[in-house]
């Protein structure tokens, strides 16, 4: 899941080099440079990829502090479906 998340970040940022630069401890806003527009489209792409629905009201930037943390958030979302 970590690899797929990083691939999607690189796709959203239109920067293939991020696939090699990012790892599970990377911060999605600082290390990947995602702005609010990128984040919305990233979440949308994640929903499509993992067939889950992210509750917009319960999502905050804290979930993006690391790829690992975000992956955990996705797992919790998938479990609640």
């Amino acid at each position, binding site marked *: 899941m970590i690899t797929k998340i990083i691939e999607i970040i690189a796709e959203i940022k*239109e920067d293939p080099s991020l696939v090699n630069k990012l790892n599970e401890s990377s911060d999605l806003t600082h290390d990947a440079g995602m702005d*609010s*527009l990128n*984040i*919305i*489209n990233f*979440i*949308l792409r994640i*929903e*499509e990829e993992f067939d889950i629905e992210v509750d*917009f*009201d319960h*999502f*905050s*930037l*804290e979930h993006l502090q690391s790829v690992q943390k975000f992956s955990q958030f996705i797992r919790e979302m998938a479990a609640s479906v």
Partner: protein
Amino acid sequence: MIIFDTSEQMMPHKSNDRFSKLGIYGVQGVFIILFLLLSPVYYLNKWDFKRHKKRKPFYTSKLVRLQERYPVFYELAMYVQNFPIPRNVYKVLPPLRGDVLQVGCGTGLLNKYLRKQKDIRFLNMDPNLNALKLGKKWGRFDAYIHAFIDKPTSLSEHCCDMILFARSFHHIRHHKKAFIESSRLLRDGGSIIIADPVVLKSLSGSKTESGYMANSSIDGVIWRFTKESLIAHIEHCLPAELKIESVTETRQVHVTNYNLFVPQTDIVVVLRKREAV
């Protein structure tokens, strides 16, 4: 795919040029007046929105929440945005008949516009229960479906001849899923009509020209498209049995299209479901 571009039809011949230009200057003037009047509300809402969005990218602005809770404010906003003749936004629609599922019917403004047309049986769908209740209370429709089109609905398959997204397509989160459900509900040979405003030039700054979602302080989390990116996005999302039949552009003279920040135009895309073999 057939593309009809009627953008010039609103300002076509020399005899009408002066009248059309006056109309455009008129709505631009109205936009300036409305903007001056409403700017305290707009900027206060935007300030609060930006403050919250730093932590919560999907934060719903107070203005959007107000419209969701009290749809009468939504109607008011529609009148302001589509000034001078709000109902004209529906004039671009092709003829409707039979069982028509209206996705995102809101309070039933289209039902009101077409109330004299007896050969349409509307199925009214919206995710906002407050809007549906108000539409029913005001007698614009008798029944409604409280549902999202991008999730499986309780409607039976092949229940409608047409599915209409009248200025609601940009609010739908997952278009692929919406088309799959629409195709299930649509009879063979039936049509899907998407009428939506699009921006005249891209705002994303992206290297590639594609539609994207953004959180707007006055419209919530919505898709933003240019004409080209809308068509490309629809083609990308369509299941095999649905095909684009026509694309029409008509830039109507109203405040939203001729606002001084983000000029827009109105697109109508007609999709056709393949006949059963």
